[in-house]
């Protein structure tokens, strides 16, 4: 139920001093309100316990951004728009600039403040992992004076902080020593705009000679507080960036987070995504020129594990022409060895929808023909895929003309009946064996035949993955 404005008192002192005096006069009674993007939502819903509010919106002492040689000092009343417009933030603190851009729409960026975001203490807040990664320090102010403390200790539990009832956050200080680090910010949510994160990451790292020289990893929405993953950081610092490290980092990160099930996601999903995001970040470090030597290794899988997602997808498309499958495979990286690769392929393949299966089927040539029919997608079969098809079907070419004609007829019948090309794992099979299989499968009902075709495609993919590893 909506609140009645009659029940609320509100004042707007014109200085920070007057504000902290008021807070000190009745500690815990006056609720500071800046841009109102949280407080007014509670108010509208009738959930605002405080009855006395003190406006700190636009207090000049809180709304300024200053820089010195070694740090930037952001007034707690600075809005997301202020952050986005600040050149030093844009240049040296991309994690924070990105988080500011992610937060709400423009109207909320014009009103929401960094201090408000910290005090509101939502574990899902997008800007807080960035502050952890940059090792922010906070200056808190009260009538008793100022105190400065590391931000990493500020959140003590769900919506609990070290802020005393008479205190305000005055300034957020970020050291400028990370400007040369590679940064990675990613938010996983239902949409890219105006959606609260299911998981978000802010990470910084510096690779040297293929090793992780230094790293900071912070995540949101995976614990009661925004969390810096110190164990994961320790596990990777000094190590060379290879598949083993990615596996270790994923495992450590998944064990370190403490997610919950809620309306937006499940704990299991969040932990998995957290692991993936850490792996993605390390892959980014590996792709930096300082780590370049590793990319030249002969280990096909090791290199593939570290490729950017789109390149990794293209690299394995020749093994199975379904983009759903390539996406699933890329998401399951890093894969330790051939067994893990084949297991991931099988799991991915079985999880796909029939439409994804169809896409894979249609990337093959009809048995007896050397290239695929009209490609169903803009992605025509790769040269590699065409070459493999020719190898797989090499026995068919040796058949006599009668078998070839019978095969062509049966193929046509199959296509009319099931509306797609006939898929069989042709490796090692003669034309007459294939003909026999084809004629048997023409008797199948649609459901059975779809499963059988999918199983054949699974076998084809497995054979191709093995070839791909040994290229």
């Amino acid at each position: 139920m909506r609140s009645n404005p009659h029940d609320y008192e509100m004042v707007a002192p014109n200085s920070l001093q007057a504000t902290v005096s008021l807070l000190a006069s009745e500690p815990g009674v006056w609720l500071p309100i800046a841009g109102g993007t949280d407080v007014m939502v509670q108010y509208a819903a009738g959930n605002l316990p405080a009855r006395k509010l003190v406006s700190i919106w636009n207090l000049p002492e809180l709304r300024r951004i200053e820089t010195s040689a070694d740090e930037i000092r952001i007034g707690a009343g600075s809005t997301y728009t202020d952050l986005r417009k600040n050149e030093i933030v844009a240049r040296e603190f991309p994690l924070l600039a990105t988080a500011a851009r992610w937060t709400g729409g423009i109207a909320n960026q014009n009103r929401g403040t960094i201090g408000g975001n910290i005090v509101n203490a939502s574990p899902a807040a997008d800007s807080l992992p960035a502050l952890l990664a940059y090792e922010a320090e906070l200056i808190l102010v009260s009538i008793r004076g100022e105190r400065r403390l590391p931000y990493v200790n500020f959140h003590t539990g769900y919506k609990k902080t070290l802020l005393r009832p008479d205190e305000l956050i005055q300034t957020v200080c970020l050291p400028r020593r990370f400007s040369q680090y590679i940064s990675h910010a990613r938010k996983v949510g239902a949409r890219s705009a105006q959606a609260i994160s299911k998981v978000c990451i802010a990470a910084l790292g510096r690779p040297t000679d293929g090793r992780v020289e230094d790293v900071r990893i912070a995540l949101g929405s995976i614990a009661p507080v925004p969390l810096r993953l110190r164990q994961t950081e320790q596990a990777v610092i000094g190590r060379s960036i290879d598949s083993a490290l990615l596996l270790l980092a994923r495992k450590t990160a998944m064990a370190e987070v403490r997610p919950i099930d809620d309306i937006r996601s499940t704990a299991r999903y969040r932990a998995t995504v957290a692991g993936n995001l850490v792996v993605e970040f390390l892959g980014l470090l590996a792709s930096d020129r300082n780590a370049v030597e590793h990319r030249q290794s002969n280990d096909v899988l090791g290199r593939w594990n570290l490729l950017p997602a789109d390149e990794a997808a293209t690299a394995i498309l020749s093994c199975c022409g379904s983009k759903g499958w390539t996406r699933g495979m890329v998401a399951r990286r890093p894969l330790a060895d051939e067994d893990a690769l084949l297991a991931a392929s099988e799991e991915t393949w079985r999880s796909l929808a029939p439409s994804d299966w169809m896409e894979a089927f249609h990337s093959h040539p009809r048995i007896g023909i050397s290239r695929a029919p009209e490609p169903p997608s803009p992605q025509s079969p790769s040269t590699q895929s065409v070459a493999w098809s020719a190898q797989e079907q090499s026995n068919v070419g040796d058949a006599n003309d009668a078998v070839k004609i019978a095969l062509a007829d049966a193929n046509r019948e199959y296509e009319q009946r099931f509306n797609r090309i006939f898929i069989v794992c042709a490796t090692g099979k003669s034309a007459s064996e294939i003909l026999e299989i084809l004629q048997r499968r023409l008797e199948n009902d649609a459901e059975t035949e779809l499963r059988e075709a999918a199983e054949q495609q699974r076998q084809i993919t497995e054979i191709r993955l093995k070839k791909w590893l040994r290229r």
Partner: protein
Amino acid sequence: MTNSRESPGKVEIAFTVNGELKKIHAYPMERLLDVLRLDLGLTGAKEGCGEGECGSCSVLMDGALVNSCLVPVLQAAGTSLVTIEGLGAGSELHILQETFLEYGGAQCGICTPGMILAAFQLLSEKPAPTMAEIREGLSGNLCRCTGYSQILEAVGEPARRRANA
């Protein structure tokens, strides 16, 4: 700001709206949206969600787009407000109002004032925005009729007109 004699708890608050100085008596925690609509009769800003998600209550406060449902009126004291009613010059439409008409950017009309004001702020900072910038600039404004394509086109049109002039 002084205590008003008429009603205990109410205060006098002054701001300019669409260029005119206004003095009102209101509880400090009244929503700017309600004051605009009920006290000043400016019903262009609409209440959609009432929690800052939909943007239909957007107005400009000192040139910055805000959700007026989330602004306690006391925080508007001393500011300069622009609502959709003040965007055109008298009976002459603002160019964005024209292009929204031309492209069918308004269907049921609930989101339209907010959309136009969000577009206005965008164009005042980026006079020739890319489509990605338009999408981002309007990302806090929801259209329940889902007529987004026409809206995006309408926002891009002023720059196209200038380029072709």
